[in-house]
C-alpha cells in the first residue's frame, strides 16, 4: 500500500513568505520555522510547518532544510514589494500579514506556488493547491513520499521503512476555525415544498375553472 505523509497546510506558509537571508550552514527545524516567521509568514502556518518538520525530522536532511530556507528567500523577494514602507516583515502583526497576502497580485501568488511546488519536488514532497472560494487564499496540501515507495498499492508492506511512515490528509488552511456545528441542507426541502404548492395551486385553479364552465 502506498504509504504517504501529507504535509498539512504548513506548506501554505510559503505563500506568505518574504525574504530573509539565512546562513548556508545546515539548518535545523527550528531555524526553518524561525525563518518563516521572520519572513512574515502567519503564526498558524509557522506552527503547522514547525509541527510537520519536527514530527518528521528524520525524513528531511540538513541540505533539504537549507533548500527550504533558500526557497523562502526567493519567494520573499516577490513579497517584498508588498510590504508597507517603514514596516519590518519580521514584526508584522497577524492582521498585517493577512492583509499583505490579500493585496498580492495573482501572478505573484502563482509564482510563489510554483516555487513551493518545485521545492516539494526537491524534498520529496508532492504539493497541490486549490484557490479558496472566498478568494482569501489557497488551500494547500502536500504529500511526503517515503523513499522507495511507488504509486502502486501493495499489501505486503514491502516499501515500509523505519522512521517516518505516515499518511495524513491535507488540512484546509483557510484561516478559519473548523466548522463544529450541525448542518442541515434545507434547500432541497424548500424546493420540494415550493413545487408542491405550485402544482397544488395550479390543479385547484384548473378544477375550479372546469367546474365553472359546466
Amino acid at each position, binding site marked *: *500500500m502506498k*504509504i504517504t505523509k*501529507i504535509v*498539512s497546510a*504548513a506548506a501554505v506558509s510559503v505563500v506568505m513568505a518574504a525574504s530573509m537571508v539565512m546562513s548556508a550552514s545546515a539548518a535545523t527545524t527550528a531555524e526553518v520555522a524561525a525563518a518563516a516567521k521572520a519572513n512574515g509568514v502567519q*503564526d*498558524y*502556518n*509557522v*506552527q*503547522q510547518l514547525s*509541527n510537520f518538520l*519536527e*514530527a*518528521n*525530522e528524520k525524513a528531511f536532511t540538513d541540505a533539504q532544510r537549507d533548500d527550504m530556507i533558500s526557497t523562502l528567500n526567493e519567494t520573499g523577494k516577490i513579497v517584498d514589494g508588498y510590504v508597507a514602507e517603514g514596516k519590518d516583515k519580521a514584526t508584522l502583526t*497577524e492582521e498585517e500579514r493577512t492583509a499583505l497576502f490579500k493585496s498580492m497580485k495573482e501572478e505573484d501568488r502563482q509564482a510563489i506556488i510554483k516555487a513551493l511546488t518545485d521545492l516539494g519536488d526537491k524534498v520529496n514532497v508532492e504539493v497541490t493547491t486549490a484557490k479558496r472560494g472566498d478568494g482569501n487564499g489557497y488551500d494547500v496540501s502536500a504529500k511526503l513520499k517515503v523513499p522507495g515507495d511507488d504509486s502502486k498499492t501493495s499489501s505486503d*508492506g514491502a516499501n*515500509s521503512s*523505519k*522512521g*517516518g*511512515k*505516515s*499518511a*495524513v*490528509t491535507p*488540512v*484546509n*488552511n483557510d*484561516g*478559519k*476555525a*473548523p*466548522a*463544529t*456545528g*450541525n*448542518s*442541515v441542507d*434545507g434547500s432541497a*426541502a*424548500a424546493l*420540494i*415544498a*415550493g*413545487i*408542491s*404548492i*405550485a*402544482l*397544488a*395551486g395550479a*390543479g*385547484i385553479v384548473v*378544477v375550479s375553472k*372546469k*367546474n365553472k364552465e*359546466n
Partner: protein
Amino acid sequence: MSERKSAKTEHAHHHKHSKSNKVLRTVSFVLTPFLLLLFVFGLFSLALLKPYNNIKPYLDTVFNPENTLPDEGQISIYHSDDLELNVREIEIQEDETKDPEKHTIIYPYYGDRYGTLNIESVGMKDIPVYCGTTLDILELGAGWDYSSVFIGKVGRVVLWGHNHTWFYMLPQVQNGDIVTLETDYVKMTYIVKDRAVFHETDRTYTHTTPGEDHLTLGTCWNNGMLGMSVYRLGILCDLVSREWKEVEVPQE
C-alpha cells in the same frame, strides 16, 4: 318536426353534457382534497423548515444511534495499520527558570487517536481527542488543531469539537473548572480562566503563545442554540500541571 329534432339534439347534448358533468364532479370530489392537502403540505413545509433546522441537532442528539464512542480498536483511515509509532525523546524547557529536560513524545499521525479530555464538572468524561480537525475526524471526537503545539510542549494547545455532540456541554463550563488532557506520554491539567466569542477567522484566542502554556477549547456558537455559525465559543484555560509518563523509545 324541426322542433322534435331540436329537442332530440338538445336532449342528446344534455345527456352527453350530464355524463361529462358526472365525470368531472367525480374527479373533482376525489382530486380536490388531495390538491388541497398538497397545497397545505407545501405551505407548512416552508413555514416549518427553519424551526426544524434549529431543532434537528437536538433530535439527532437524542435519537441518532451513531452518536456513540468509537470502537477503541478503530484504526485511522488516513494511514495503513502497520505504521510504527513515531516516538522520540526531545528537550523541553517548561520554564525560563528551569533547565531543559528530556521527555518522550509520541507524535500522532493525522487521524490518529491522540488523547482524552475530561471536564468532570460538566460531565464531559473521556472525550476522545484525535489528531486533526477535518469534519470526519470531528464526528469521532474532539480534534487537535494541527496549527497548535503538540500536547505536552510549551505553548497553546487548541481543541475543537461539535456543539451538538462531543462539546455539547462546553458552554456550561465555568471559570475555575479543572480540565485534564491526557495522552500516552503526558497528562496536562488546566484551569478555566475565561471564555470568548469570536468570528471564525479571528485567531486571537487560537494563535500560538510561545513560552506560555494555554489551552483553548472551541466550538460553534449560535447564541446558545445548536447549529452552524460563523462564530465560535472559546473556553480559555491556563496550565496547572504537566505530568510526564514513562514511554519506551524504540531502538533504531
